[in-house]
């Protein structure tokens, strides 16, 4: 039984070792590890939440936990909005066994392998290169006032490499990265370094794109970011509950073509994988958009109780921070079009490749993101390369503009920020064709 006045409490303790290597123009700038131990204790008082974030909490020390619970209850007493919690789906997914456990390798070895990728980026004509490796091994322990306990350990690692090419005062950058939960992934990746270098050089000869409304083909990486920004955030139950989402009140509504299905699945063994969510719930696949219709929202226990339409298990949090409704592995399901058919149908437009990230205002329903680069499409054929191209639009009108979905999906990894917290995610899609896309670029012809 929780102490008097407390309807529910839970404790999430995360102990982590973070390792990084940073190599800049052949110089090992830094390489090392740091250790952290952070907990968040949530107390549901008579109305809302009181939460306490502390380092080095021992949840098994009753005296220590009781003090923190009392502190949480005192905080909860200023709340005004009654929070209810839906029943939690219990269980944990098995963490995939890593191929080569990065924790078993010495820092020297990681540094040496990363240095090869960085060196490979220095193709003739490249002025500057940099490669970074990050690794985070997390052990999570969860318990709540019902006595339920869950625990898991996941190690994520990955690298990024950038190359900068310069000519006559112009500077352009190529970037490649790969992150995973499946073990050390840096071996034999020199070709990604070379690709970063070659992209930077090619961009020196690329022109600026002329902005405007046009047909656009999004490659799988950018289309994945599109799914994440345009639909994923607006499907988050906390934003829907607050009234900050254009998808609020639209369950069952057709917002896109019947070929469009958009999914978030934290149980998928990709970079956003969670064996159990930040509220100790079993994670599961949610179809946010199913055959063009708004099908479900992403939920924590609180937002599910308030809104219905979906499943809990989408709560994610940084160590010591409150869980928010978050995406994990978000993707557009495959359609039936080949890339050739998509180009032919586009006829004249632009191909947008890769992603420099994006952002959305889900309440206004407006999103923006930047491609790494693009190519003009002329008479169904890939034409000249263009740089600094972006895509923005209104979620609802843009989804209706999806004309074709390709038949081969790829996933790409990244980090997503919300409420001051960053969590690892993956996004994916096949190629998609958009009509009337608002493409940004500073070119004039």
């Amino acid at each position, binding site marked *: 039984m929780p102490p008097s006045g407390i309807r529910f409490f839970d404790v999430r303790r995360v102990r982590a070792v973070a390792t990084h290597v940073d190599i800049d123009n052949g110089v090992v700038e830094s390489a090392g590890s740091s250790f952290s131990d952070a907990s968040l204790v949530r107390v549901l008082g008579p109305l809302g939440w009181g939460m306490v974030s502390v380092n080095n909490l021992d949840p098994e020390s009753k005296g220590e936990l009781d003090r923190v619970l009392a502190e949480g209850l005192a905080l909860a007493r200023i709340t005004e909005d009654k929070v209810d919690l839906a029943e939690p789906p219990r269980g944990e997914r098995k963490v995939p066994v890593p191929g080569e456990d990065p924790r078993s390798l010495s*820092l020297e070895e990681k540094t040496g392998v990363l240095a090869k990728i960085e060196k490979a980026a220095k193709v003739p004509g490249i002025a500057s290169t940099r490669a970074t490796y990050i690794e985070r091994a997390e052990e999570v322990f969860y318990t709540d006032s019902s006595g339920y306990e869950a625990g898991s350990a996941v190690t994520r690692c990955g690298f990024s490499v950038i190359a900068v090419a310069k000519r006559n005062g112009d500077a352009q950058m190529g970037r490649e990265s790969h992150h995973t939960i499946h073990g050390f992934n840096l071996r034999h990746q020199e070709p990604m370094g070379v690709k970063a270098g070659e992209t930077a050089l090619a961009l020196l000869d690329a022109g600026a794109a002329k902005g405007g409304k046009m047909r656009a083909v999004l490659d799988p990486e950018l289309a994945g970011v599109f799914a994440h920004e345009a639909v994923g955030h607006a499907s988050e139950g906390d934003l829907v509950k607050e009234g900050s989402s254009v998808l609020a009140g639209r369950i069952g509504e057709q917002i896109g073509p019947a070929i469009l299905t958009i999914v978030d699945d934290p149980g998928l063994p990709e970079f956003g994988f969670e064996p159990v969510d930040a509220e100790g719930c079993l994670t599961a696949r949610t179809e946010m958009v199913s055959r063009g219709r708004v099908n479900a929202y992403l939920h924590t226990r609180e937002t599910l109780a308030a809104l219905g339409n979906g499943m809990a298990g989408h709560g994610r949090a940084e160590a010591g921070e409150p869980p928010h409704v978050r995406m994990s592995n978000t993707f557009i399901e495959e359609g039936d079009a080949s890339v050739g058919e998509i180009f032919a149908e586009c006829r004249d437009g632009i191909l947008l490749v890769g992603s420099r990230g994006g952002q959305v205002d889900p309440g206004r329903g407006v*999103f923006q993101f930047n491609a790494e680069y693009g190519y003009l499409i002329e008479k169904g054929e890939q034409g000249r390369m263009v740089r600094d191209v972006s895509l923005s639009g209104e979620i609802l009108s843009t989804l209706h503009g999806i004309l074709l979905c390709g038949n081969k999906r790829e996933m790409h990894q990244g980090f997503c920020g919300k409420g001051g917290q960053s969590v690892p995610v993956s996004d994916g899609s096949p190629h998609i064709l958009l009509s009337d896309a608002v493409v940004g670029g500073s070119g004039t012809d």
Partner: protein
Amino acid sequence: MELIDQILAAGGRSAQEVEVYLVEGTGVSAELKRGMVATATGSREWGLSIRTIDHGRIGASATSSPDRWEECLQAAVASMALSTTQEWRGLPEPAEIRRSAPSFDERVVPDPSVAQGFLKGMLEGARKHPEAKITSGSGSLGRSEVTIANSHGIRYTAARTEVGCSLETICGQSTGSEFAHSAFLEIDPAWVGERAAFFAVHSAEGRPMETGPCDILLSPVALAQFLGNILVPALSGRTVHAGRSRLAPLLGQKCFDGRIDLLDDPFARGLGATAWDAEGVPAARLDFVKAGVLSSFAYDLKAAYRYGAKPTGSAVRGGFSGSPAIGVHELVLDGPREAIASDRALYVHDVVGAHTANPVSGDFSVECQNPIWVEGGGFQEPVRKAMLSGNFFDALREIGGIAAGSRIVGNAILPCIRLNNMQVIG
């Protein structure tokens, strides 16, 4: 403090120099959801960062556990062995710190009822535009103490406080947001609430605009996004010497409009005020741009020693866990102030997607938040949707002027500026 002595003594057995950076803090925040207080959070932070340096090799580690300091020290020493040897002339010696920086207000106490008061104040302000619905908001107060010590005898401690509040609103499908932050108990929650509600309501009547060039008024918030994502990285000595800054060959040249001064003023009354930087080097005013002329780049000790430059006291840390890196304490954009909203221009309250700009070339394409036509010194008709594209370095070559007044936006103190002839897609 006994812990610091222990670490310095133990570290001295493995390295020529040792540095300890210790942060302790407490804070409270309260969150609004749909106009009601939904959550209150308290936090206690403790963090330790150790650097060890031996014959030009630098190692670092960090921990949030006081009883793991020995492991942390060992990790720093191990990481030292891996780093590339570089030219190194030592951690700073103790210096007389003559000025105190305005970073602490004893009135700031992490009391949840004060955070609750910020929320009530914002709600009261928002009531001036009742068509706006409150979606979310927060109020927070924090106190911390930061200590830096090294094996040369430096031991500086500074107390810091921070208060802040923010509100998000919606009117139909039009959103508005505003915030205020300060080291002092000087924020005006009612103003934050009124502005957040105003922007949502005013922009709800937005009409489409024609695609084409027009002048832009960048609010301090929008300006901070461009400066932080494009210009500040290009002013880092490390970026410059690594060949990733477009400004690298332009030192001493007129790169920007002659009315622009851009400087780091660590003694300004903002959020990053400090008398010493994250390596214990005395902080001082650093003029990046004087009357449009590129005058200095920023250096921490590592970059300064490596590239033969003078350290500028520009080391900053993003919390205890990061090694020091080159940054700014309080970025100030200044210059002659004038009326810049007389002739027609598009005001941009904030932008979506500034982090996707190309930091090397300066090219950007962003979606405008609350774009509104201004003319005759005031807001006119709102615009529904506007995408702004261009090159930020080029846009600052000849600006339309700098408005009176400045505000704190993160670690910057900025005015509203007018950009000429920018490309906008309606």
